[in-house]
């Protein structure tokens, strides 16, 4: 099911949680809504589900305007952050709930419900646990019950709110891979909310980066990491450092000095962003220049923290990757140039 969101605005007591948000989700896509808390990602998910209604704008399911359809009518599968299982029902009763509450002719007979429940249990690899109560399950198992329950109603779209937020790191990794396989197998249009960029980049076909009630960028993991569209995306995703610079005649000037890096376009003040790994140590006068204040080993790399003096003010702090085989002494001076960078006019 295709979903398109058109110029959505959502206010809570005059506070705009979402401001003019538009997004197209293709059928069968796995989309991550990524952003810090308060960015409006959960609000957007709830609007798609019909748990909240937009102040302005429209939501289309396919060609049908679903903006004012009730949540019961929208037929969406929603998995809540804390699972929201019915604790007085067994696993099987939880999963079958959505079928049992259907009215009249659309309600499948009991035997059919039982068959579907055991099918779903098999799909989420929980066969044999149908008679357990939710409090007898581990967090990861509850999560999968919640997913099976959402899938039971054959939803047009599957929505997950921080699906792995409450799980420990190892289980989270396992479930993440499992969800990707599950999605590839069932081909449901899926939207999930997360604040964990690693999760979003690894799992999603496309990542929607949100901040302050707006969409900052939509793109593949490569897009948002390699070609960030805004200063926010650059600093939110992955590690990065930034320095105030001036563009003049194709040269990037830092504190009035050329740093030996040319920029094709632009003129005037700006902000230079670069990642720790996109830096080269150089032996030239026209380069960035600072003192090593700390050095730490990070998995296969070594990161040096560098302070760049700033005429009486607090020094600029940047982090760069240095070669493992070339030890840098604390307090020594380093000269370096970014090899890949981006300038945002500031």
């Amino acid at each position, binding site marked *: 099911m295709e979903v398109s969101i058109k110029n959505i605005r959502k206010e809570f007591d005059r506070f705009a949680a979402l401001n003019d948000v538009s997004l197209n989700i293709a059928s069968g896509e796995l989309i991550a809504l990524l952003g810090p808390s308060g960015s409006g990602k959960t609000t957007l998910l709830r609007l798609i*589900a019909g748990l909240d209604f937009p102040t302005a704008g429209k939501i289309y399911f396919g060609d049908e305007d679903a903006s004012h359809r009730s949540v019961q009518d929208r037929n969406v599968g929603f998995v809540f952050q804390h699972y*929201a299982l019915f604790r007085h029902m067994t696993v099987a009763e939880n999963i079958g709930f959505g079928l049992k509450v259907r009215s009249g002719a659309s309600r499948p007979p009991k035997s059919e419900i039982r068959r579907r429940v055991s099918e779903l249990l098999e799909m989420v690899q929980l066969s044999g646990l149908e008679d357990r109560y939710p409090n007898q399950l581990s967090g990861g198992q509850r999560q999968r019950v919640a997913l099976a329950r959402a899938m039971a109603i054959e939803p047009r779209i599957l929505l997950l709110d921080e699906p792995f937020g409450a799980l420990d790191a190892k289980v989270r990794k396992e479930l993440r891979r499992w969800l990707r396989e599950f999605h590839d197998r069932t081909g449901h249009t899926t939207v999930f909310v997360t604040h964990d960029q690693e999760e979003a980049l690894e799992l999603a076909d496309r990542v929607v980066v949100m901040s302050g009630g707006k969409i900052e960028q939509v793109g593949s993991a490569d897009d948002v990491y390699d070609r960030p569209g805004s200063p926010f995306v650059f600093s939110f995703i992955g590690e990065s450092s930034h320095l105030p610079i001036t563009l003049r005649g194709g040269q990037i000037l830092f504190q009035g000095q050329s740093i030996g890096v040319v920029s094709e376009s632009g003129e005037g003040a700006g902000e230079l962003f670069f990642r720790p790994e996109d830096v080269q140590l150089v032996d030239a006068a026209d380069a960035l220049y600072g003192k090593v204040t700390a050095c730490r080993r990070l998995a296969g790399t070594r990161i040096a923290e560098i302070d760049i003096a700033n005429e009486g003010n607090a020094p600029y702090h940047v982090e760069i990757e240095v070669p493992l085989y070339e030890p840098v002494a604390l307090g020594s001076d380093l000269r370096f140039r970014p090899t890949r960078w981006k300038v945002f006019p500031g």
Partner: protein
Amino acid sequence: MADTTAVSGQWRLKQPSIIPGFGMTLGFSLAYLSLIILIPIAGLIWRSASLGWSGFFSVLADTRTQDALFISFGTAFVAALINAIFGVIVAWILVRYEFPGRRLIDAMVDLPFALPTAVAGIALATLYAPKGWIGSLFMPFDLRIAFTPLGIIVALVFIGLPFVVRTVQPVMEEIDREVEEAAATLGANRFQTITRVLLPGLMPAILTGFALAFARGVGEYGSVIFIAGNIPYVSEIAPLLIVIRLEEFNYAGATAIATIMLLISFTMLLVINLIQAWSRRRYGHG
């Protein structure tokens, strides 16, 4: 090895625990309960034992005793049932909606706790009497409320309401909104969400409220005697019969009725407690 079997074979009162003070608090609780509850009850049973089995059964066989017991437990049961239903609705209103006067209603719920029961009884009797404000409304249907068992139920409903509201309210406040939303996304309408998702979760609390209201209703005296009419075999409650026996200096007879009431009450409360323990274990509340 011999040591461990000896330890595991015997029932240990005190499990090793990092929470201190078990011995002291248990000792205090037992002493306190003995003083306040067990010793008076033992005295009651001892006193009624002076009747002997035959005397005891003759009290029990008296139809006036039987009717009084039936009226006491029957009206208390019906009143507790009514309170269980309407108390949940009142709690729902107080928890779920913001409206002007909510705090006032919240405070009003406790009034039956604070009001002297005799005052309540007189007020209710005046209102529900055949010529009273409310009683007169029912007269065209030939329905008399005051001075009949219906009147007793009215009084007990009044007395028992706060028990249900106050036990259900805090549990209701803790209901996770997500659970209701989950039910809605699965296609359940409001009615189905309430009956299949919310109420079963509230059941242990409702049962507790019901048990408290019921127990209170069985023991209620002050408000009932004003509205009941106290006609033997019709609207005479067991506590009143006890007082009547006492006034006849028939102490053994009075304590015998009291002992029977005690046994029935205890059995019913025990059963309710067992149901609660079962549902708690099942739903993982405790």
